[in-house]
């Protein structure tokens, strides 16, 4: 049973059938999925959701598929926890981490969108899937489509981190490294996509794909005990995630799953070396000027964000804001999250935490209100910028004497017997 009515243009409202359409033929506006919320309200209760398996498919009435879920059955429902040590370091009372660095199967939130996109691609009868990616999407499409049995063409910028290249190649897709930025890859893929009959997950089946990001938002709301936090800090690349978290909140309010009067402020996080969305927010403008990216946060290095306009609007209309941070601040935040909460996130997660920290220090986010920091990827994939910054392990000979003489001072005063 599907609750998807059809598609509709977000700009001019023109309705379309639920086919492979990604842009309004008349005004080029983006296309969104429309649902029968009255029917959903009758079946989707907190109790019904809570009884289901812990995966992103527990919200399936709100996801754009016709039949049964076919891909990513173990994806989603990642850890969400209250931070104590990090909250203390930041000087805030109520801080939570939503941790997609351990998403199944490829350690980033892209497993969510790809699960939906590939299920839908199967329904449409595609035999080949493709994507333009800064790395995480590439990994997820490569892995999930291997298991789903698709032919795969995956396009990435040629300068990606080794972890993201290996993390695609292992699944044996055709991996195409394009000499250029993500924006070049993306433009090329739009052209390839209009020539070859493939499902480009983030292009021609984008309206379905993008809906997968809502599950990140649903989970935050459910895991917080069916309530909304006051502040959510979100990483922005193309700008879709922040808009979909906002949509998730709106839908849960509409369905009576959370307090309809809850007010959530959303904050956009970018690296200073690629901050087209944050720049637009700070100018309170509605024209997103593209930039040429230069940052270690490669997964966020999109200079011409497809949903930049909507991301800006979402942040500003929620009463939130945007901020950007330097490469040094990114690294410091990656280390801070690891040493306080035991979570090793990628550079993008460093961006988000560093921005949260900055907004708290600026007084933009109050210290006594509830805050969620969105961690969306895993640090094992972006090790290069850390190589020269973490120091080295202490090297010793395999003897007790070598251990004690090398660690000398550090061991001074350390008890040698466990207390009874």
């Amino acid at each position, binding site marked *: 049973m599907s609750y998807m009515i059809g598609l509709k243009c977000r700009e001019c409202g023109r309705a379309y059938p639920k086919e492979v359409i990604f*842009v309004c033929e008349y*005004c080029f506006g983006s296309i969104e999925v429309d649902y029968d919320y009255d029917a959903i309200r009758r079946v989707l209760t907190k109790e019904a959701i809570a009884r289901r398996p812990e995966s992103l498919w527990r919200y399936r009435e709100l996801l754009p598929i016709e039949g049964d879920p076919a891909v990513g059955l173990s994806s989603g429902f990642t850890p969400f926890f209250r931070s104590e040590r990090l909250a203390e370091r930041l000087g805030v009372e109520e801080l939570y981490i939503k941790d997609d660095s351990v998403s199944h199967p490829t350690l980033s939130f892209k497993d969510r969108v790809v699960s939906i996109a590939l299920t839908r691609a199967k329904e449409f009868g595609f035999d080949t899937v493709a994507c333009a990616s800064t790395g995480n999407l590439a990994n997820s499409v490569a892995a999930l489509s291997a298991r789903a049995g698709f032919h795969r063409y995956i396009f990435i910028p040629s300068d990606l981190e080794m972890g993201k290249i290996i993390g695609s190649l292992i699944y044996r897709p055709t991996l195409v490294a394009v000499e250029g930025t993500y924006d070049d890859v993306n*433009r090329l*893929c739009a052209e390839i996509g209009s020539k070859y009959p493939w499902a480009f997950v983030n292009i021609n089946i*984008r309206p379905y794909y*993008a809906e997968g990001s809502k599950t990140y938002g649903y989970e935050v709301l459910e895991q917080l005990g069916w309530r909304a936090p006051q502040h959510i800090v979100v990483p922005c690349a*193309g700008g*879709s995630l922040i808009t979909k978290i906002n949509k998730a909140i709106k839908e849960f309010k509409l369905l009576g799953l959370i307090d309809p009067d809850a007010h959530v402020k959303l904050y956009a996080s970018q690296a200073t070396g690629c901050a087209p969305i944050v720049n637009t927010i700070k100018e309170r403008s509605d024209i997103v000027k593209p930039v040429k990216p230069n940052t270690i946060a490669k997964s966020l290095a999109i200079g011409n*964000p*497809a949903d930049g306009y909507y991301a800006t609007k979402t942040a500003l209309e929620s009463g939130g804001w945007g901020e950007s941070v330097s490469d040094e601040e990114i690294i410091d935040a990656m280390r801070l999250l690891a040493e306080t909460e035991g979570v090793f996130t990628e550079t993008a997660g460093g961006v988000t935490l560093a921005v949260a920290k900055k907004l708290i220090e600026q007084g933009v986010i109050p210290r006594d209100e509830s805050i969620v920091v969105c961690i969306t990827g895993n640090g094992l994939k972006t090790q290069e910028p850390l190589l020269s910054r973490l120091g080295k392990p202490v090297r010793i000979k395999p003897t007790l004497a070598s251990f004690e003489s090398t660690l000398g001072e550090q061991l001074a005063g350390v008890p040698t017997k466990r207390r009874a």
Partner: protein
Amino acid sequence: MAVTVRIPTPLQRLTNGQGEVQCTGSTVNDLLADLEKRHPGVKERICDESGKLRRFVNVFVNEEDIRFLQGDQTAVKDGDEVSIIPAIAGGMA
């Protein structure tokens, strides 16, 4: 010789299904005017009432976004390639 203009799928109905057409002009603006002459109806789809390119349309001259060049006044010459691409195509997170 002329300028090759790549037409996005949603507009190919107006170009008899062709993904590429030839046009002439010395700037992007001229080129769009010529495109409209050859394939009536295209311009109102990619430009708003005031004649400016719509928010959700990106134009590239030889792979470079015209917003990094001189916008719709960007010069074009014979042999150049111009792509019209929906802004929504791609980008995520």
